[in-house]
């Protein structure tokens, strides 16, 4: 049960956005700019993978599932690729540059000071640019915020894979600024057990 009285028709961060629309606006604007808007070099799928991986490291079920679903819809609906990155980025079929960036993201998750000059030099050697290094650190730091916000208020985090797929498809297509659809919670609770 959530720690505060939240609207029941929306899961995860969406219930918090409904609770306090004033803060929802910049939180959505930030994620839209970081993950969805055009980027000089990193695809939306690559940026969503960074967000998904950090959410997994923070053990935030809602954020990991929804961003995994969004990543999948950006990446030719390749669920296996998302699964492989979450299991072990080193052995996943992604570029060496993205592996180096995910390593930096993991360091940021465990504490900003953990990122060494060596980690950054390694990413540069794989071709990472200043903006890519900056954006990786910011995405990882931002998901340490979103994950804490979602878990710290004990929001409703469904287990329904089909629901995350449907929400992920919407976000991959529309971005973050459009209204979410309502979820029939009674149905989810009774069918999910």
């Amino acid at each position, binding site marked *: 049960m959530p*720690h505060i009285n939240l609207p029941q028709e929306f899961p995860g961060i969406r219930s918090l956005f409904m609770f306090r629309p004033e803060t929802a606006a910049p939180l959505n604007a930030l994620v839209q700019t970081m993950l969805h808007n055009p980027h000089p070099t990193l695809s939306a799928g690559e940026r969503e993978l960074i967000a998904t991986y950090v959410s997994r490291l923070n053990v935030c079920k809602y954020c990991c599932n929804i961003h995994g679903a969004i990543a999948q819809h950006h990446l030719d609906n390749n669920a296996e690729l998302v699964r492989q990155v979450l299991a072990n980025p080193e052995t996943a079929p992604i570029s060496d540059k993205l592996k180096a960036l995910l390593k930096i993201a993991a360091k940021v998750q465990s504490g900003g000071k953990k990122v060494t000059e060596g980690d950054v030099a390694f990413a540069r050697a794989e071709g990472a640019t200043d903006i890519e*290094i900056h954006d990786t650190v910011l995405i990882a730091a931002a998901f340490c915020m979103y994950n804490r*916000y979602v878990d710290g208020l004990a929001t409703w985090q469904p287990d329904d894979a089909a629901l995350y797929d449907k929400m992920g498809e919407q976000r991959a297509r529309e971005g973050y600024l459009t209204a979410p659809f309502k979820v029939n919670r009674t149905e989810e609770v009774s069918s999910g057990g």
Partner: protein
Amino acid sequence: MPHIELEAHLPGITGLLEYRKDTGEPIRVLTQIILRGPSTLTEAERELLATVVSHGNECRFCTTAHAATVDLLLGESETSERVKADIATAPVSEKMKALLTIAALTGKSGRLVTPEVIAKAKAEGATDLEIHDTVLIAALFSLYNRYVDGMATAMPEDNSYFNVLADRLVNHGYSRLPQGYDHLKKQNAKP
């Protein structure tokens, strides 16, 4: 030395918010709403939440900046010092102790916030909105602390920088200065 090239006269967070203004803007707007917008918590109380999280994350720049802001708002430095040292014995209300505890836990992980610490805050009179804002402030400073340290931003050469910064945060807030920050070049230059 920062991991990427940032403007040398802008240590800590400011150089990052200026490096990429399109991500800087929503971060600034969020901070202005949550730390300076209408609230039943005072600005000093909200700055204390930011301080305790930054202290827990061992982010020197953020801790020094927000403690200096608390001190300026309160006209003394004892409260921020004692909150950093031990929430339980600090000279703040029981409600604030409960909210500071929630913030410190959120700073470590959202999953550490238990129904018990929430019940304690509610018993001391905290509202749903105050609890919400406390968790969001703690989450936001978990972003700031990692952003500032993850990019290895510089500390100011002179500690008096924090007096100027605290004055700006008290009297202007978190919005970007309309004229930008070029005027700090002279102020911050080595003698």
